[in-house]
């Protein structure tokens, strides 16, 4: 229970259905931890893990009459989400902390706690569907009814064991219906705004977050400044550090040329940022590592799917095939713009999630 509309509605709904429920909130990050560091706000409110949200979640639990606890997973969150987030940027990749959080915290650590305290399943307010498919003999993850809220992209890492113990009660509902349900149950949070950004990065400014976090840790920002080169290898300038760039970025390159330039590639080893014209942003294939397959146990032969390469991306037709140990090659029918290392590639067969991996 995050204190938001979705998980609150789930709790009210399951309670009304007569389930034996326990409300849990994960304390993952102390929002005041970096307050006062340069560029960080003094006060952070209305965000995941803020006191206001815990207060809201607790009030909902009290209102619907279920036991409620806050469980502290700050250490694990920092180790498995925040640290990798910082390190990915410093290596020239663009990370997705929400997937790491789902894989390591929400559907791993939280599930362990849930089972330890006597619960059989974990229900969350994610927009997705889960169900057992007799024909395939596998648990399937599917896109939700409200495709505008689809969160399956962040859930591709769930294992069969995790899916078998997960409930997504909002899978068949639209957001307006969820708000209506919360209002019908008299929950004060029915009109609460949706959270949008990465929960631990205030204002979405990840560069300032990295600076503040490293300063807090007593570490200095590694010097990742280097050359700005064209796709032909010609050095055309300098850049301030690879973590300031993301593939597809156009602004802030600090060079003036006749035609617009984009970041095409970031080379962590050489500290180089490769720039070029927009046409150079398109590529026909990607390789994904650390693969998790859901609808099939193994990819024994090439498979026709749609591949989603970032959260706001319309899945594009492609063929996927095994290309190495724990690696999949996806070849698109049409070249895709700004395929970004560090992001996830998630494979869909209609609304069924086949699996996914991390773009290299």
């Amino acid at each position, binding site marked *: 229970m995050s204190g938001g509309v979705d998980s609150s509605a789930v709790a009210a709904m399951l309670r009304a259905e007569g389930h034996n429920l*326990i409300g849990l909130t994960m*304390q993952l990050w102390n929002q005041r931890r970096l307050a006062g560091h340069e560029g960080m706000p003094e006060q952070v409110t209305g965000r995941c*893990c803020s006191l206001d949200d815990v207060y809201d979640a607790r009030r909902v639990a009290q209102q619907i009459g279920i036991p409620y*606890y806050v469980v502290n997973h700050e250490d694990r969150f920092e180790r498995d989400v925040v640290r990798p987030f910082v390190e990915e940027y410093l290596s020239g990749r663009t990370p997705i902390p929400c997937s790491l959080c789902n894989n390591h915290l929400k559907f791993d650590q939280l599930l362990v706690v849930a089972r*330890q*305290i*006597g619960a059989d399943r974990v229900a969350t307010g994610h927009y997705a569907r889960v169900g057992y498919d007799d024909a395939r003999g596998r648990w399937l993850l599917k896109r939700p009814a409200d495709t505008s809220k689809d969160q399956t992209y962040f859930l591709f890492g769930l294992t069969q064991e995790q899916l078998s113990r997960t409930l997504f009660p909002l899978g068949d509902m639209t957001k307006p219906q969820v708000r209506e349900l919360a209002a019908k149950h008299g929950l004060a949070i029915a009109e609460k705004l949706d959270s949008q950004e990465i929960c631990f990065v205030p204002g979405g400014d990840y560069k300032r977050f990295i600076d503040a976090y490293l300063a807090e840790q007593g570490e200095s920002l590694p010097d990742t400044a280097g050359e700005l080169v064209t796709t032909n290898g010609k050095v055309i300038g300098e850049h301030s550090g690879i973590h300031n760039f993301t593939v597809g970025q156009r602004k802030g390159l600090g060079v003036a040329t006749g035609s617009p330039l984009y970041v095409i590639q970031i080379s962590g080893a050489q500290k180089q940022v490769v720039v070029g014209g927009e046409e150079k942003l398109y590529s026909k294939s990607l390789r994904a590592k650390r693969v998790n397959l859901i609808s099939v146990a193994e990819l024994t032969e090439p498979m026709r799917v749609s591949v989603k390469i970032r959260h706001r991306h319309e899945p594009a037709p492609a063929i996927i095939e095994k290309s190495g140990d724990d690696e999949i090659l996806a070849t698109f029918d049409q070249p895709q713009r700004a395929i970004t290392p560090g992001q996830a590639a998630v494979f869909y067969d209609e609304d069924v999630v086949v699996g996914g991996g991390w773009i290299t």
Partner: protein
Amino acid sequence: MRRVYLDNNATTPVLPEIFEAMRPYFADQFGNASSIHHYGQDTRAAVESARESVAALLRCRASEVVFTSGGTEADNLAIAGLTAPGDHIVTSAIEHHAVLHACKHQEEAGREVTCLPVDARGLVDPDDVKRALRPNTGLISIMMANNETGVLQLVEQIGAIAAEANILFHTDAVQAAGKVAIDVNKIRCHALSISGHKMHAPQGVGALYVKKGTRLQPLFYGGRHERQRRAGTENVPGIVGLGKAAEMAKAALDCGDTTKLSAMRDRLEHGILAQVEEVAINGGSAARVPNTTNLRFDHIEGESLVIALDLKGLAVSTGAACSSGAIEPSHVLVAMGLRSDQARSSIRFSLGKQTTDEDIDFALALVPETVARLRELSPRYTKPSVIARS
């Protein structure tokens, strides 16, 4: 569902006799103790009578007792009120946050603070106190009994050091009051804090003993209450409750009644140690108050154990709840040298006057099976293998 409460170091239920003593002072005898009329005289008598009971418990003069809103205020009053900017304060790493954070605040307000370590038993070495003294040391604040482990500090030795060096000595006796005999003359302290709700009086009342002749700067400014040491209309029902609790505690201590409590605590401790593998008693090798045991169950998250036990009807605690209600690893256990994961796998059981043998039976039936289930489901745990004997 049957519920058993073994978290009496967090708070205690108001005992029926104490509740009855307080009852008239809500509606019938409601006067302001400072008023000159009949109503005021009535409550003034009750407040002064309570003061005498508290004084009897602490073996001090009634005029040396200052009523406060609780232990935290008493600690803050002592630390702020007995020091001045430029002073040096000696305290320890295992103090309650009411002392630690008050000291930290004073550090920001121009005092110097030395925070002494403890050994593996949880004891502050009196020689460390002696060595920490500086020419500008104005106050030593070392607790009498620790809230998490129940370990009793060597306050009489520390008091002797303070007296010899002519330095003020405050002790937070919130977890000691009512559990062990307290004699401020033996401790030779200048200030001592107690809290009502840790000894079966209600929440919202406490007291600070301040030795006669000790200059104390108040925290609040207002009326001339409590001999100008604590402004604000007295919480009469609370004070009456604290007085009654002190009276009852003294009577029980005088006739050795706490042995019943320590026998129950020991039975709980031995029972768990006999049934569960890989358990250790934190602070078990030091002298402790009779109601507390802090057990470390290796390979589990104490937080999950507390929740699992609560869902089955047993209330215990771990660490200190932070503002969200989440649990942070205990600074006390970490100071005793436990690793963070060991601190997180520790649980405190604390008994009260209402605790019965049946309550202990209930805990002994529930804890071993719950720990076993948690370990079975813990990714951190592998069952110790039986080593074949040669």
